[in-house]
Structures are given as C-alpha cells and as structure tokens.
C-alpha cells in the first residue's frame, strides 16, 4: 500500500496554512519587490505625473521633439554598440582559445584576462586619463599632448568600456564552447576538415551565446555612468545625473533614461529567448570534440597576442596608477587621509554582499524550483533590473526613502547605501545562484522529503551545503560590485558619509593626481584580492573519462 509521509509536500499542500517554503519564498519576493522593483517603478510613475499629481507626458516630449535629445540617443547607442562589438571581437576568440586550445599557465592567464571585469569601469577610465590625458604619462614622455582628443571622445569611451567588458564575452564564449556536445563535432570530423567543422558546426552552435553576451555588454555599456562622465561623453546616464543633481528634476532625469530602458527590456527578452535555460545551465562536455591545435610559430603568435591583451587591459592601466602614485609614502598618506572612506566602503560592501546573497539564494532557489509559469519572467526581470542605470536607481531610492518615519531614518544613515547595493545587485546574484541551484539534483530534495525532513531542514541541510561554492562565488562578485559602486552611491550617500569610489570621483577634479591614483590603486588591490581567492578555490576542471 502506498503511504504518504506526514511531512511530504503533498500532505502539506492540503492544509490551509501556507508552508514554510511558500512563506520563505513569499518573503524573499516581497523584499525583492520592495528593494529592487519599487524604486524603479516609483520613478516611472513620478516621470508620468505633474506637480498636481495628474498624468502627463511632458517629461517625455523633448525626447521626440528636441534635436539635442536625438543626438544624445545616437551617441548612447553608438557607445553601447561600439563597446559590444569591441568586447566581442576581443573576447570571443579568447574564449574559444581557452575552451579548446592547450595553453601554458591557463589558470593564471585567465585570471589576468578577467581582471578588468572586476576593476570598476571608472577606475579604468581614470587610468587611461592618467596615461593618455593632456598631462598623462604619454604626453609627458613625448613632450606634447597628442592623445587627449582621442581620450576625451566617444571612441575613447568605447575602448575603455570594451576593455572593461571583454572578459564577459570571453567567459561566455568559453562556457559555450565547452558545453558543445563533443559528438556533434566528431560526427562532422568524419566528413570535414577541422577548420570547416569549426566554421560550420562549432561557431553556429556557440553563436547565440556569443551574441547574447554581446547584448549584455551593450546594455551594461548603456547603463554605465562613471566612464562617460569622466571622459566627458554626453549620454543618457550622465544627462540624467545632471538633470537630477543640478536641477533636482526627478521626472526629467528618469525620462532621459526611458528609451534606454525600453532597449534594455527588449535585449533582456531577446537574451532569454535566444539562450533560454542555457542562461543558467553550463555543463561542461566531458570530452572536447574539436581541440584547437596550432603550429609552433602560430602558437607563439597567439601567446604574444594574449600577452598583449593582458598588457593593454590590465598591466598598462595598473602601471599608470602605480607610476602616478609616486611612491609608497603617497599611498600611505592617501590611505590615512581617506581612511574613513576606505573603512566605510569595506564594511558597507561586506554587509551589502552578505545581505544580497541571503536574499538572492532564496530568489535563485525560487527561480529554479518554482512550479508555475511565473519563473519564465524572472530572468528578463533580473537582467532588466541589473541593466537599469545606476543613476536611475539612485534617484528612485531617494524619491522613495526620503520621507518621515523609519524610512527617513534609514535614508539619513549609511544603511541607505546598503539599500542601494541591494537594489542594484540582487538580480545578478540571484541569476548566479539560480544557476547553482540548477546543478543540484531535485532527487536529493525529494529523498530528504520522503525521509521525513521538513522543507526548512531540507533547505538548510541539503540545499545550502551543496550550494556553498555558488554562494561564495556570488558573495565575492557582490562584494566586488558593491565595493566599486559609484553611480547610485554618489547620489544617495548622506553628507559626510563617503565611500572610496565617491571620494575618488570627487577628488579627481581638484586634487593632485598622485593622491587620486593612490586611492584608485587601493580600490583595484582590494577588489582583486577576493577574485584571486575565488580563482584559487574554484573547483578544478573535469577530468577526462574513457568513452
């Protein structure tokens, strides 16, 4: 006779009271909506109402009628498309090489190539200004300024953003190339040359993922504030910041970003459509069907090319910062004068990352295990919210939290920065953790359930232990993002409560470059430490097994 354990979900679902699972997921979704969704929705509502509270499209009218706004739109699209193309052209071949070619010191090279992704983009822009600006290292070495026109231009911003984001394209391509079923290539190799198999079989199979990564870079470049602001390129995010910071015009600030948000929505839906569940699942094929092999001279050229990319994307900017600091004493002095900002950044990023992961782990679990169709909308929502420009999030948080009572108390304290971090980075952490949950067999949860464990116990004792690598990775990524956050923090930080990025950004205009470079270098150093630890402790690659 079939019996049903008293703790089984089938039994619990028949009760009137909601289960612990439903309560936990419901609480997580509520917090997600409160912290991440409402600020953005609130800003849209504000942008669609006038002072009397009636519906109006006045804020949006200039978008259609003002030629300057159209020019802004063109520049913004050019910046996003340029950065996406640059990042893909540089990153995709590297990803293919790392997936398929035998390279020396692969782990170290990958770490060196990924480093630009964790350096805050505005630091990268600052480093390039110190290198190629009017009084930069190159100008001083040559005795004349010959590069600053290029630096402070759309092209300069495209290059800086392309260099910052190419690791995304590289990692996505590598993951896609690794998960191609080896037999698809092997069956082609029975008839065709390796080059033809690469062109006709491998590349079309990984193409959608490469394109999706390009679209993500496009959206991230569009939502970036620090780089265009530093390099004096007028795009929607910088204009939204000006509209708010200079004129305190909430509605205009958001309206300026509205076209971009439509683009972000289309892109996030396209990504979901194009790569579907592969957004979460990246199993590695145990065997490589088409390893890339090169003649000795070609291999040497490839290694020189990789070294050149590492040099240009990481070593050169970091060297510029190092040279500009003018010595260890300057770094020590900058650390003492900005000690409070550094300490603030560290504890706020630590607290932010911890809270983000706590919320994201439940959301990621819900995204993967939800039994209804709602989960289909999670991924586009996560991508869209992550793509919302930092300035819009900042403006939304100010509008929502700047009021009397408990919210006002939070707003006037450093906790508003933690709220901002949560609003910005929970979506990306939830996507990462959803991917980790997906790797856990549902059978392990069913086995615990059949054994009589409650959902809470199953989650705590079965799911979370299996997620520990994913949780650590999500925490490190969240910490890095929080530690480098500038666009929203600069708007919401209470007076006198600066973080390191805000301090660096505000010092750039009127402080000796040696102090700014010292602080930027500290930012890079602190950011790279968790990345290195993560790389060292990541699981080693799958070993080859006989067929």
């Amino acid at each position, binding site marked *: 006779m079939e019996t049903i354990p008293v703790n089984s979900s089938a039994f619990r679902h028949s009760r009137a009271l909601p289960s612990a699972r439903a309560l936990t997921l419901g609480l997580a979704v509520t917090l997600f909506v409160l912290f991440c969704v409402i600020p953005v929705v609130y800003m849209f509502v504000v942008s669609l109402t006038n002072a009397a509270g009636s519906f109006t499209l006045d804020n949006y009218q200039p978008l259609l009628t003002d030629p300057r706004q159209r020019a802004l739109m063109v520049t913004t699209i050019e910046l996003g498309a340029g950065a996406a193309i640059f990042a893909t052209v540089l990153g995709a071949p590297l990803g293919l090489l790392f997936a398929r070619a035998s390279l020396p010191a692969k782990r170290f090279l990958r770490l060196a190539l990924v480093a630009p992704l964790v350096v805050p983009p505005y630091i990268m822009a600052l480093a390039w200004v110190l290198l190629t600006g009017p009084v930069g290292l190159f100008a001083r070495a040559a005795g004349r300024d010959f590069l600053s026109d290029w630096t402070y231009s759309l092209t300069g911003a495209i290059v800086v953003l392309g260099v910052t984001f190419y690791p995304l394209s590289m990692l996505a391509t590598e993951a896609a190339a690794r998960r191609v*079923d080896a*037999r*698809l290539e*092997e*069956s*082609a*190799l*029975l*008839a*065709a*040359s390796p080059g*033809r198999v690469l062109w*006709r*079989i491998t590349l*079309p*199979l990984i193409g959608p993922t490469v394109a999706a990564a390009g679209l993500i870079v496009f959206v991230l470049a569009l939502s970036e504030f620090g780089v265009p602001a530093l390099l004096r390129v007028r795009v929607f995010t910088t204009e939204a910041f000006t509209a708010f910071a200079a004129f305190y015009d909430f509605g205009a600030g958001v309206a300026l970003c509205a076209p971009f948000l439509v683009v972000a929505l289309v892109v996030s839906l396209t990504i979901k459509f194009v790569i579907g569940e592969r957004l979460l699942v990246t199993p590695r094929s145990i065997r490589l069907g088409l390893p890339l092999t090169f003649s000795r001279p070609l291999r040497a050229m490839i290694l020189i090319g990789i070294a050149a990319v590492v040099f240009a994307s990481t070593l050169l900017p970091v060297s510029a910062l190092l040279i500009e600091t003018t010595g260890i004493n300057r770094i020590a002095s900058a650390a003492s004068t900005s000690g409070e900002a550094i300490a603030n950044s560290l504890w706020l990023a630590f607290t932010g990352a911890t809270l983000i992961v706590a919320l994201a782990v439940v959301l990621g679990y819900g995204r993967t295990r939800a039994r209804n169709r709602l989960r289909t909308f999670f991924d586009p929502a996560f991508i869209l919210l992550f793509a919302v420009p930092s300035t819009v999030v900042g403006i939304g948080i100010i509008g929502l939290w700047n009021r009397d009572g408990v919210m006002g108390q939070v707003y006037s304290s450093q906790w508003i920065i933690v709220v901002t971090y949560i609003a910005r980075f929970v979506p990306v952490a939830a996507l990462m953790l959803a991917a980790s949950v997906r790797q856990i067999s549902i059978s392990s949860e069913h086995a615990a359930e059949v054994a009589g464990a409650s959902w809470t116990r199953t989650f705590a004792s079965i799911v979370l232990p299996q997620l520990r690598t994913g949780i650590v990775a999500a925490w490190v990524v969240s910490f890095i993002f929080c530690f480098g956050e500038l666009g929203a923090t600069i708007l919401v930080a209470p007076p006198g409560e600066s973080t390191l990025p805000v301090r660096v950004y505000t010092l750039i205009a009127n402080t000796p470059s040696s102090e700014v470079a010292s602080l930027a270098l500290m930012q890079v150093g602190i950011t790279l430490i968790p990345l290195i630890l993560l790389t060292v402790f990541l699981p080693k690659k799958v070993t*080859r*097994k*006989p*067929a």
Partner: protein
Amino acid sequence: MSGAFLRLVDVTKRFDERFVIERVSLELREGQAMALLGPSGCGKTTLLRLIAGLETPDDGEIWIAAKKVAAKGRNTVAPRGRNIGFVFQDLALWPHLTVAGNLDFVLQSQRWERRTRRDRVDEVLRMVHMAPHADKYPSQLSGGEQQRVAIARALVARSQLLLLDEPLSNLDSDLKSALLEELSFLQRRLNLTTLYITHDKLEAATFADTVVKMKNGRIDESNLTLMQGVR
C-alpha cells in the same frame, strides 16, 4: 595479408594508465555485419572511436580497405579520410541544420557538386522514408525519425564501412524491431561492412552475421567461437 575490409591488429588504448582496450584483434570481410556485444564500460565505444580515428591507439594497427589508417601509436589517416559512416548513440544530429542540411554538410565537405548533392540527399532520404521531412530541424522530429536521419547521414557519402554505436538504445521495443529490420535490409542491399555495438543479445543476433563478445577491453576468448546471427 588477409582480404579483410576492416582489420585490427593488437590494438591497445589506455586512459590514465588504465587499459580500456587491450590487444584487440578483429577482422571483417567486405559486406559482413558484425555485432560487438558486451556490458557497459567494457570498451566497445572506445573501440569504435579508434576505428573512426576519434581516438588514437597507443599500440597496434588498424587497416581499412587495405589501407593502414593507424599504427605505432598514431593515426596516419584523419577521420575524414577514412570514408566511414558513424551513427552515434545519442545520434549527434546538428541542431542548427535541417534534415537535408545535416546530409548536405557531409557531401559538401567531401566536395560533391551541388546538383549531385541534392539528388543524393533526396535519394537517401527516400531510402529511409524521411523525404517529407527534409526541411525540418532535428528538434521537430520524433525519436524514431531522428534515428532515421542519423542513419541517412551515415549512408549519404556512400561509405563502405558503417559503425553503429548502440543506435537504437533509446527507442521502445516496437520501434526498435522495425528500425532494426530496415537497417538490416539496408546493410544487405548496400553491401555495407558494418560493426554494430550493443549490449542486447537479441538485437545483436537479429542484425549481425557474426557476434563477438567483449569483456574488460578484450575480446572474450571463451566466446571466440563466434555465435552465428539468426538472420
């Protein structure tokens, strides 16, 4: 030298110092259908991959149509030069190409002319009753239909050696019997030298003239007096 179409001489393959194939010798004459029977992990698939050139033997020789294709620890002829048709266990149909596209890719890679290619693709698709599905993608086909496409792809370039790696393992028994019969018919009609891997004794006996058993990477000596197929 014997008149064998496929000949393996003391072929050995190790993975991480573990013998997966150990001194295997086999001969198949032209048009012969041999089934290789054995439990999972006994090295059947690795043996097929060695013959196809997808793995390199550590020792021994492999001859196809009187041509040495592997010897002294290296492949002397690349997989595409061996003129082999291969049906993988999971079929390995290219998901981004249509049914006709899957077949055409093989012919195009072997530099067939466009008109000849089209005719040949039509002919083979008719042969496996898949002509009406030529423009569909693999994901739009049922399991049995996908199986037929995989077989058609293996046959399209007029390969004389057909390697089948448990091609029917994922089908229900009715469909399996029907396809097995068709496959057997095609094999005889086209006089294909065929090596068929399976762990199902009945399937092996139905399809093959000769059944050879493998165990722990070796031909099972106790069964070397080969079972005769029932067909």
